[in-house]
């Protein structure tokens, strides 16, 4: 096995590590699902993965193509209806971590998965909200995983599908959102966290081989870089092996 890792692998490994110590995770499909299943294979073996198709405690051997794949239901502790998954399990705040992606994100980690351009005649019509607005509102915390490009990291998102830290300090409390909101944004260049005071995203760790200037250049607002910027630990052979086994 090559021990040289790609930026994509670093991103997935960093995201999986963010689930260490978490008991339950509401998982979006794609990158979040891959990272969550890597966490289950490495740092969070007992974590309960919950998919919005209603499967609770899914343990797929391979990352599913879709959230409705048979493997998610067959390996689940239980399968519940759509009404139940959103009303009984997500809404009361029972789930520790929500794991989301996005097409656009702003400095307060508000997310757009609805449209690029004007809502009524969009340049790109995206799939829409799905479970994301309530995952972002009701999980105890959320983690966002996105590629770090200027197309995604924009000054103003075209549509607010899911609320992160709103317009800054106190926004979530004013809106009555009970979860803490985004605690980490993990990209292929580094890890960002909201500033405890301003709630604006700050680059706190750069992945090995990347320069914080790369992240700044791919961010559509003047990116703040933590004075004590860390370097992310590279993937261990164990993490890389587990990730490649999932993808094989």
């Amino acid at each position: 096995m090559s021990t040289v890792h790609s930026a994509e692998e670093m991103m997935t490994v960093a995201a999986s590590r963010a689930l260490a110590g978490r008991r339950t995770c509401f998982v979006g499909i794609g990158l979040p699902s891959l990272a969550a299943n890597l966490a289950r294979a490495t740092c969070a073996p007992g974590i309960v993965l919950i998919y919005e198709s209603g499967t609770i405690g899914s343990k797929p051997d391979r990352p599913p193509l879709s959230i409705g794949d048979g493997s998610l239901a067959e390996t689940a502790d239980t399968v519940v209806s759509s009404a139940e998954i959103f009303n009984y399990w997500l809404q009361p705040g029972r789930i520790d971590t929500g794991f989301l992606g996005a097409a656009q994100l702003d400095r307060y980690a508000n997310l757009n998965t609805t449209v690029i351009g004007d809502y009524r005649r969009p340049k790109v019509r995206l799939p829409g909200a799905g479970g994301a607005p309530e995952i972002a509102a009701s999980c105890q915390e959320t983690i966002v995983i996105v590629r770090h490009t200027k197309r995604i990291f924009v000054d103003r998102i075209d549509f607010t599908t899911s609320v992160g830290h709103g317009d800054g300090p106190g926004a979530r409390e004013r809106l009555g959102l009970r979860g803490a909101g985004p605690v980490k944004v993990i990209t292929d260049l580094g890890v960002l966290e909201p500033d405890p005071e301003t709630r604006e995203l700050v680059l706190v760790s750069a992945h090995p081989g990347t320069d914080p200037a790369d992240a700044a250049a791919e961010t559509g607002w003047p990116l703040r870089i933590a004075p004590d910027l860390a370097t992310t630990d590279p993937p261990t052979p164990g993490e890389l092996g587990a990730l490649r086994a999932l993808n094989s």
Partner: protein
Amino acid sequence: MAVLAALPEALASAVHDGDSVALEGFTHLIPHAAAHELIRQGRKELTLIRMTPDVIYDQLIGAGCASKLVFSWGGNPGVGSLHRFRDAVEHGWPRELSIEEHSHAGMVNRYVAGASGLPFAVLRGYAGTDLPEVTSSIAPITCPFTGERLTAVSALNPDVAIIHAQKADREGNVQLWGIVGAQKEAVLAAKCAVVTVEEVVDELTPVPGAILLPHWVVDWVCEVPGGAAPSYAAGYTERDNDFYVRWDAVSRDREAFGAWIAANITEAE
């Protein structure tokens, strides 16, 4: 009372131009055969309702059967965009498509309200998002007991709900299991329910976690083995993931799409 019938007869009787129709299913038990029959019958001006419009709604929209879509997530699961849906919203092709857009939690609670005989449902949702600005069936509401600000969504009562299930008996009692999505709520909310099933049996045997829809809430039952393909029916068929990947290229191009519809639906033997 459920009538056992052939699919073309059931849909010709149940679905009319201009109806609101929910073909429900959450990436499992998707009623592909029924959607194809609607295209074959040339239905027009439908309001299509679904939490997760996927390939069959892409086909109905691209074939010009729909004037409105009520939904919460419109994509090809695990693959990407629905290109016929995008073409309709972005360019008005083959006709303008108006949209009424929710989150999953909002949509499912609209079905719950409809099934419960209530005009609306209440949830914690949408606060701070742009969805209430663009969707008139979302409104703020104050709890009469605590004063808390919550969100109301109006009930959904489709003219027709169409679902696929594993089994029915000869009376028309329907049994489905696995990922069951919002099918029960959609059937109970709708004025008329059509169910396609993998098989009709003399007697239903209990299955853990199964939903049973009694024959007196179902209008039509049609035996259509493989009627969910390329989606799947747990216990009967596997999901054809390759089809969903291939659909991306077919649906990107208007001509390729038209040729696919002709070859597989309207001019198929």
